[in-house]
């Protein structure tokens, strides 16, 4: 018999997990790039890796305090954005896609190579950098919460910080996107020559957008590694594609889309993996081993996302009216 209670409570846990928050923030960064500015950034995983490693390395190797480590990570991503943007933002959007996908792989391979093992930990990655963050925790020791949401003080601290950052990022993005700055950004998405002809420095705006969305990705990378260790294989191209899936699920040029999209994505993923694992155990799917079942969840999530994109192509929060004019 299947334990439905466990499946649903495991799925509910993902609703507020720090990983969900990290993906939401990274997807919000992509919304700025792709949804609002029209920049095809396929290297969000690279920005996340820079955040994770920037935070971990400056803590472990240089003994930086938390705020210093955060600044190092953001600084690294700004430099990364400049390196990507200076040669490519003057060209057509497709070139940025090619360059970013390659650059993110370069970043991942640099962190994986044995040459810098002393600092990056190579393929084993890094751990033991959470002391500073845990030290800031004002919550007294103990377990809190109800039902499936029962955590110790570190886990609550992490969730509160992670979701506060997501909320602030949403407010910030909402504010700038309804300002004249956001209008220029959206104009660039529609036709950058027209915006140029109206006296706006398109190149500068695209660079600002790339840096801003990249910084969101970097902070997401830091949140992502706080409940786990830094492992280079987490930053493969598939990470970027999951974030794109979340973005399209929620609505590409929306503020809440990435957040809700990330929640739906992770809850569905957890639900399917719990359901399939138990269904195999219970003998409901006799032709499948439990290892095969582990892969099936990604197929089911893929099918779910396809259904949403087919029947609600503007995403959960997207404006249906916009679709009427898509060429």
């Amino acid at each position, binding site marked *: 018999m299947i334990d439905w209670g466990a499946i649903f409570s495991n799925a509910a846990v993902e609703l507020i997990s720090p990983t969900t928050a990290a993906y939401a923030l990274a997807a919000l960064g992509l919304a700025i790039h792709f949804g609002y500015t029209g920049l095809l950034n396929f290297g969000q995983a690279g920005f996340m890796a820079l955040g994770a490693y920037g935070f971990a390395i400056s803590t472990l190797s240089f003994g930086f305090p938390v705020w210093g480590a955060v600044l190092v990570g953001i600084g690294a991503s700004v430099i990364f954005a400049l390196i990507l943007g200076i040669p490519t933002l003057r060209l057509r959007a497709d070139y940025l896609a090619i360059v970013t996908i390659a650059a993110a792989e370069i970043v991942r391979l640099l962190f994986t190579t044995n040459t810098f093992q002393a600092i990056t930990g190579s393929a084993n990655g890094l751990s033991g950098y959470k002391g500073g963050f845990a030290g800031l925790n004002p919550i007294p020791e103990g377990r809190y919460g109800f039902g499936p949401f029962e955590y110790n003080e570190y886990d609550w601290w992490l969730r509160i910080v992670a979701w506060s950052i997501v909320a602030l990022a949403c407010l910030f993005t909402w504010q700038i996107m309804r300002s004249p700055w956001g209008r220029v950004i959206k104009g660039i998405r529609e036709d950058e020559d027209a915006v140029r002809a109206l006296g706006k420095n398109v190149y500068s705006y695209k660079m600002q957008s790339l840096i801003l969305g990249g910084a969101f990705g970097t902070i997401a990378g830091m949140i992502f590694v706080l409940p786990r260790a830094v492992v280079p294989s987490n930053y493969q191209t598939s990470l970027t594609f999951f974030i794109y899936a979340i973005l399209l699920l929620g609505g590409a040029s929306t503020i809440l889309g990435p957040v809700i999209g990330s929640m739906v994505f992770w809850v569905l993923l957890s639900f399917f993996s719990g359901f399939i694992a138990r269904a195999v155990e219970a003998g409901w799917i006799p032709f499948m081993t439990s290892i095969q079942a582990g892969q099936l969840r990604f197929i089911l999530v893929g099918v779910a996302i396809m259904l949403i994109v087919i029947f609600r192509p503007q995403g959960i929060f997207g404006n249906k*009216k*916009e679709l009427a004019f898509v060429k």
Partner: protein
Amino acid sequence: MSNNTVPSNKPVKSTDLHIGEARPGCTKRDPILVADGVSRTFGGLKAVDVDHVEIPRGAITALIGPNGAGKTTLFNLLTGFDKPDSGSWTFEGRPLSGMPAFKVARMGQVRTFQLTKALGLLTVMDNMLLGAKGQAGENLFRAIFPFFWRKQEEANKARAIDILERFKLDAKKDDYAASLSGGQRKLLEMARALMSEPSLVMLDEPMAGVNPALTQSLLDHILNLKAEGMTVLFVEHDMHMVRHIADWVIVMAEGRVVAEGDPHEVMRNPAVIDAYLGQHHDEDLGEDPAAETEHVEAIKELLD
């Protein structure tokens, strides 16, 4: 149909714009734009090769010429959308060569495009507001705090409504620009250019693909620009329109300026007729009697 394209009011023509004889590259009394030795090649093709040209201030100048004459390329060069191989030009006495397009626009030289570039998924109002210059809220840091830009935004909106009313687009202000018809997009593009309060408006084929009824209102709008003290330079194919509203005509062919002058005079210029109809347009190619008999005999032979 040609009668429909006549503007409702008889336009007041500016005259006495040039000094000396009206020939290619002649000096103007008060030029707003002066270009020297501008050339641009695409591979082996010399698309633009203009020795000297001056655009008179406060007048409507038409740039005409057959397809491939280099009109749009010259437009792109003068507005910074393309880089010339050589040449320099000044706008209101300030050198412009090599300046990026957005700076050119900020100096008051605004252009529209042959294929309209309405920003489809922005509302008509947002399209208009984008045209306004010197907006504080376009700086990322000030954008965060609405009190830096709210007042300016309200003023810009009022001005946008004013212009939209003139262009009869005010009812559409909250619709996506993508929902407008082709002609309305042309109007919107022109209206948007006006938001930046330009001194020189450059229109690339403003009438292309516009129905006759709208043509009339577009013509009126172009005449209004002049009435408000702006200089207009436009590319056009429709000779009726050029004759009716242009004060001065510059004719290009094969990348060069081949003729200049008052619209009525210039159409009689043999260089212009050659450019449009080819140099042998008045020779009947079928009138060679020797060749004709030859052909007839060849056909007879075939029939036998």
